[in-house]
C-alpha cells in the first residue's frame, strides 16, 4: 500500500513539474511567445526521439535483437494517430491526443507482434533484414494510400496535411518519462533479466526456462507501442507527415542513438537522442555571417558522418558503455541476510514411475547416427553416470533429453509421460495442417501469378482499382498454372515435416523439472553472478509483465524471495562473496559451480550435469563430489552426470551407463563397469583378433578425425 501511494505521489509530482514547465514555455508577451518557437520545436522533437531511442533500446539493447526498421513503427503510430484526430474533430484536444496515442501505439504494437513472430525462426542479421524490410514495406504502403479511396485523405507520397497541432511539452516529455520509467523498471525486474539473458546467450536462457520467443515478441510489441505513441506525438507536432521521412535513414539514426549511447543503456540512449536531434539543427543555424559565404548544407551531414566514425573509433562501446548514469546509488542490494535456505514444499510424487526413461531414442544428422537406440532409465533419487569416449554421443543425448534437439525416432518419458520423440499427429489434425500449408502456398501462387499475368497483359486498370486485377486474374491460365505449381510444391515439401507433434522446447523441459549445465560453459557473461542465478527464477514466476513494468508490490515481494533464495544457494556453493561480480570475471572452477547453482535455481527434479568437473584441480574435484551428493540429498533430486574423471564418476555414481558410437554398450554399478571387457575395449582399444563381437583386424581408432561425429 505504501508502495502504491509512493508511486502515485511520484507520478503526480512529475506531472505537476511537466505541467509547470509547459506553462512557462508557452508564456506569451504582447501576443508573441517568450521562447523561440524554433528552439521549442527542437525541444519537443528531442523529447520524441528520446522515446523512440529508449523504445529501441528495449529491443536492441536489452534483448539483443537487432532491429533496423524502427521508423516503420513510428510511421504506423503517426499515421493511425493522426487519422484519429483528423477524422474526428471532436477529439482535437488533450484527451483526443491521449486517445490517438493509445490507438496509434496499439496498432503499432500489433505490427510489432507481426514482425516479432517471424523472429521465432530467424536469428541475428536475418532478423535485422526482416525488420528493415518491414520498415520499407510500411513506407511504400503509406506512399500508396492515395490510391485506396477510404485512405485517400492520407495523401500518399504527397504527404498527410492538416493534422491538428496538439502536442506540447507536457505530452512529449510525459511520454518520454513514461518510456524511460518503464524501461528502467523492466531492466531491474526478473522479466528484464530474462530479456538480458536472451541477449547474452539464447540457448542458455532457453535451458533455464526462459521462453525466448515470447521474450523477443514481447520486446517487439512493447517497443512498437512506445514508438507508435511517439510517432503519434510527432504527427501532432509537425502537423504534416511524409512517408519519406520515416525511411531507412531514420531507422538507422535511431540505431545510431542506441549504439552510440551504449547498447542497453537507457540514459545513454536518452542523452544521444537529445544531442543527435538537436545538434544537426543547431549546425544548420551556424549558417550566418562570414561562414554563410562558404557554407553548404551537406557539410552538416559530412560532419555528422565523421563524428560517428570518430566516436566509434575512439569509444567502440558507446558513450556510457553498458552502464547507467545515476544520481543516487541503488539502495537495497544488501538485503541478502544470513538465513538458511527456505525449505521447499515440493509436491509428493504420486506416480511410482521412473523419473526419466528413454526408449529407443535415435538421432541422425544427415547420414551420421549420433545416438542409436538409446535406452536408459533413472529411478527417483538416483545418481547415475553417463560415460564414454570422446565423440560417443553423450552431449547429444543430453541435448535430446532437454529439447535442444528433437529425436529422429524413439520416445523420452519424464515421470511416465512422454515429452519428446515419436508422437504422430492425429490423422485429422495432420490433414488440416497440410491443407493449411497448401492453401497458403496456393494463395501466394495466386498473387505471384496475377502480378506476372498483369505485367504481360495490357489491362488498363485505374490505380485506385487495383484489386480488380485479382478478379481478372481468375480467368487466366497463367495464374492458375502458378497456383497449381506452388500448391504442389508446398504439399511435396511439407508432407514429411508434418509427421510428428513437435516435442517440448528447452524452456518447457525446464518447467517440467529438468535442469542442465553445459559442457562449454554458457553463463550470461555480462550479467553479475547474482543475476545469472536470478534468471532461473523467471521460469517459475507468478507475476506478469505488467507488474514488472509498474513495479507492483507483488513483484517486489517475489523478487525479494528470489533474491534470498539465490543468495542462499550461492552461499552453499561458496559463491556469495562474488555475487556482484560479472560472471565473465570468475575463475573457471567457480564458473562451473555457478552453472550448477543456476540450474538448481529452476527448482528441478532431474539435474543433468555435463562434465561438471572439467578444468577443476583435484582438490576442487573432491569438494565437488561432496557438493553433488549433498545437493542430491538436500533437494531430493535425481542426477544424471556426464564426466570423464573416472575417480569422480566411480566415487559418487550408483549406476553407470557407457556410451560408445552412440550406443549403450554397458550398464551397471561402478564395480561392474570397471571390469566390463567391452568398456575396457572402448576406452583402451582392442588387441588384434580379440573376439568380442568385433571382426578380426578391425582395430578401432580413436583419432578424433575418424570419430563419427563430434558432439562435444
Amino acid at each position, binding site marked *: 500500500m505504501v508502495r502504491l501511494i509512493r508511486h502515485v505521489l511520484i507520478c503526480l509530482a512529475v506531472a505537476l513539474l511537466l505541467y509547470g514547465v509547459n506553462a512557462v514555455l508557452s508564456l506569451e508577451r504582447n501576443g508573441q511567445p517568450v521562447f523561440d518557437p524554433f528552439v521549442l520545436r527542437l525541444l519537443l522533437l528531442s523529447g520524441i526521439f528520446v522515446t523512440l531511442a529508449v523504445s529501441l533500446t528495449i529491443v536492441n539493447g536489452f534483448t539483443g535483437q537487432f532491429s533496423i526498421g524502427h521508423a516503420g513503427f513510428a510511421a504506423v503510430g503517426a499515421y493511425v494517430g493522426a487519422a484519429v484526430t483528423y477524422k474526428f474533430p471532436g477529439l482535437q484536444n488533450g484527451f483526443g491526443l491521449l486517445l490517438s496515442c493509445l490507438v496509434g501505439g496499439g496498432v503499432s504494437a500489433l505490427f510489432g507482434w507481426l514482425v516479432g513472430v517471424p523472429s521465432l525462426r530467424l536469428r541475428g542479421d536475418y532478423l535485422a533484414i526482416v525488420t528493415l524490410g518491414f520498415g520499407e514495406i510500411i513506407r511504400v504502403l503509406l506512399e500508396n494510400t492515395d490510391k485506396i479511396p477510404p485512405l485517400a485523405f492520407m495523401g500518399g507520397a504527397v504527404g498527410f496535411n492538416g493534422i491538428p497541432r496538439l502536442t506540447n511539452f507536457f505530452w512529449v516529455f510525459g511520454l518520454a518519462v513514461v518510456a524511460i520509467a518503464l524501461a528502467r523498471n523492466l531492466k531491474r525486474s526478473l522479466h528484464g533479466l530474462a530479456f538480458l539473458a536472451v541477449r547474452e546467450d539464447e540457448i542458455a536462457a532457453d535451458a533455464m526456462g526462459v521462453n525466448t520467443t515470447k521474450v523477443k515478441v514481447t520486446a517487439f510489441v512493447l517497443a512498437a507501442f512506445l514508438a507508435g505513441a511517439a510517432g503519434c506525438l510527432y504527427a501532432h507536432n509537425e502537423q504534416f507527415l511524409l512517408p519519406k521521412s520515416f525511411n531507412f535513414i531514420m531507422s538507422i539514426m535511431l540505431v545510431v542513438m542506441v549504439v552510440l549511447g551504449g547498447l542497453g543503456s537507457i540514459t545513454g540512449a536518452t542523452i544521444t537522442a537529445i544531442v543527435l536531434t538537436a545538434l544537426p539543427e543547431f549546425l544548420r543555424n551556424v549558417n550566418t555571417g562570414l561562414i554563410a559565404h562558404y557554407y553548404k548544407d551537406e557539410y552538416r*551531414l559530412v560532419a555528422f558522418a565523421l563524428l560517428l566514425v570518430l566516436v566509434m573509433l575512439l569509444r567502440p562501446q558507446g558513450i556510457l558503455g553498458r552502464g547507467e548514469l545515476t544520481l543516487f546509488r541503488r539502495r537495497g542490494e544488501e538485503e541478502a541476510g544470513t538465513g538458511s535456505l527456505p525449505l521447499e514444499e515440493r509436491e509428493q510424487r504420486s506416480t511410482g514411475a521412473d523419473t526419466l526413461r528413454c526408449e529407443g531414442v535415435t538421432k541422425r544428422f544427415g547420414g551420421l547416427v549420433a545416438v542409436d537406440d538409446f535406452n536408459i532409465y533413472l529411478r527417483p533419487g538416483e545418481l547415475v553416470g553417463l560415460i564414454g569416449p570422446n565423440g560417443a554421443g553423450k552431449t547429444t543425448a543430453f541435448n535430446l533429453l532437454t529439447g535442444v534437439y528433437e529425436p529422429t525416432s524413439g520416445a523420452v518419458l519424464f515421470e511416465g509421460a512422454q515429452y519428446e520423440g515419436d508422437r504422430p499427429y492425429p490423422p485429422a489434425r495432420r490433414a488440416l495442417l497440410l491443407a493449411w500449408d497448401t492453401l497458403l502456398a496456393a494463395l501466394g501462387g495466386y498473387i505471384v501469378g496475377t502480378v506476372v499475368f498483369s505485367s504481360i497483359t495490357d489491362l488498363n486498370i485505374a490505380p485506385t482499382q487495383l484489386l480488380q486485377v485479382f478478379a481478372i486474374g481468375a480467368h487466366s491460365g497463367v495464374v492458375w498454372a502458378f497456383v497449381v505449381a506452388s500448391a504442389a510444391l508446398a504439399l511435396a515439401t511439407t508432407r514429411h515435416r508434418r509427421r510428428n507433434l513437435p516435442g517440448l522446447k528447452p524452456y518447457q523441459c525446464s518447467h517440467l523439472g529438468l535442469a542442465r549445465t553445459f559442457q562449454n560453459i554458457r553463463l550470461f557473461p555480462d550479467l553479475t553472478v547474482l543475476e545469472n542465478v536470478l534468471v532461473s527464477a523467471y521460469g517459475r514466476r507468478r507475476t506478469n509483465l505488467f507488474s514488472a513494468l509498474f513495479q507492483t508490490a507483488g513483484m517486489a515481494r517475489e523478487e525479494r524471495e528470489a533474491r534470498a533464495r539465490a543468495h542462499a544457494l550461492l552461499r552453499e556453493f561458496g559463491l556469495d562473496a562474488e555475487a556482484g561480480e560479472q560472471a565473465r570475471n570468475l575463475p573457471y572452477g567457480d564458473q562451473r559451480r555457478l552453472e550448477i547453482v543456476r540450474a538448481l535455481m529452476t527448482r528441478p527434479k532431474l539435474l543433468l550435469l555435463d562434465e561438471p568437473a572439467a578444468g577443476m584441480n583435484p582438490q576442487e574435484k573432491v569438494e565437488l563430489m561432496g557438493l553433488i551428493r549433498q545437493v542430491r540429498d538436500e533437494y531430493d533430486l535425481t542426477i544424471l552426470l556426464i564426466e570423464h574423471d573416472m575417480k569422480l564418476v566411480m566415487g559418487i555414481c550408483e549406476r553407470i551407463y557407457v556410451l560408445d558410437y552412440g550406443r549403450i554398450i554397458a550398464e551397471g554399478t561402478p564395480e561392474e563397469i570397471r571390469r566390463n571387457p567391452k568398456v575396457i575395449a572402448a576406452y583402451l582399444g582392442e588387441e588384434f583378433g580379440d573376439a568380442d563381437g568385433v571382426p578380426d583386424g578391425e582395430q578401432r581408432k580413436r583419432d578424433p578425425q575418424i570419430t563419427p561425429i563430434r558432439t562435444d
Partner: protein
Amino acid sequence: MGQSLQLFLQQLINGIELGSVYALIAVGYTMVYGVLKFINFAHGDVYMVGAFMGLFVVTGFAAASVDRQAMVIVLAMILLVTFLVSLRGHGRDPKRLAARIVGFGLILALLGPLVNALLAFGTRMMGGLTAAAQRSVLTGGLLALLVCIVWCALLGVLIERAAYKPIRSAGRLTALITAIGVSLLLENGGQAVFGANPRAYSLATLPGGQQLIGASLNLHLGSVALSVNRGQMIVLVAAIVLVAALLYIVQKTRLGKAMRAVAFDREAAALMGINTDTVIAFTFFLGSALAGAAGFLNYGLTQFSFDTLTGVMFGLKAFVAAVLGGIGNLGGAVLGGVIMGVAETFVAGSPFSSYKDAIAFVILIAILLFRPAGLLGRFTVEKV
C-alpha cells in the same frame, strides 16, 4: 498467347539483366559478410562511385563540375578526424603531439594548393583517358570498366584499412555503425563536391557506339520474335564473365583458398599461417571491384541516371538479394540477385508498379519464413 509469351520472355530477359547488376553488388556484400560477419553498408556507395568514375572517363572530368572549395572543406574535415584518431595511443607524448600538430597544421595550410594540384593532375589524367576513350566505343568501354574496377577496388581497401580495421575486435555493431558513417560520408561528401544533380552518360555517344549499343538485337525462337537491347545484353555478358572470374579466383587460387579458410574460422586460419589482414583487404578489393564494375555497366550501357544517393536503395536491394540467396554464399548471391531483378521487372511492368520498392522485401520475408538461412544457405544448429 504468342504475344503473351513474347512479352513474358522479354520481361524475363530484362529482369535477368537487372538481376545481374544486383548480383555483382550482392557478391561483395556476401564476401565481406562471410569473412567479417558484418554488413558493409558503404558497399552500395562504392557502386555509386563506380558510376561516377565511368562518367569521368567517358565524358571527361569537366563534366564532373567539381566544387573546389567544397572539396577543400570536406578533405579538411576528414583530415581533422584522422588527426584526432591518431592522438589515441601515443598521442600523450608531448614531442609526438607537437610533431602531429605541426604536421596537421602544415597539411591544412597547404590543403588549398594541394587540392588544386590534385585537381589539375586528375584533369590531365582523365583528359588522357577520355581522349583514348573517344577513339572507339570498344576502347572507351574497356578503359572505363578497367578504371572503375581498379579505382573502386582501391577505395574498398582504403575504407577497410582506415575505418574497419581499427575496430575489428570491437564487435559487429560497432563495425556496422562505422560502416553507416562511412556510407553517409561518401554520400554527403560526394554531394557537396559533385552536387545533387542527377547525371547520365552513355557509351553510345562514342564513335561506333550507336551500332554496338543503340541497336537492338533480334532473336527468333520458333514463332516468337524477341527484340533485345544490345546494351542490356552486354551488361549481362559482362556480369557473367566477371562473376565467373571471381568464382575462379575464390575457388582455384591460393588467395581464394585462404579467403575461404578465413571465412570458415578466422583464428584457425591465422594459426595456419594465413595473413588474415591481407585476406580481408583482398576480400574488400574483389567485392569493391565488382561493385565498381556494376556501377559503370548499369549506367554506361543503359539510359538510367544516377546521383550521389543512388547507392542507398540499390545497395539495399543487393544486400537483400545476398540474404535471400543465403548470406556468405557466392552462388546464393547470384541467384538472389537474379530473383530480385526478375521480380522487380515483373512488378514494374504490372499495375502494381508503385509497390515496386516493397516487393524485394515481401519476397525476402516470404522466403525467409520457409528457409530461415536463405535459399542456398545452410541452417546450422548452434553447437551446445
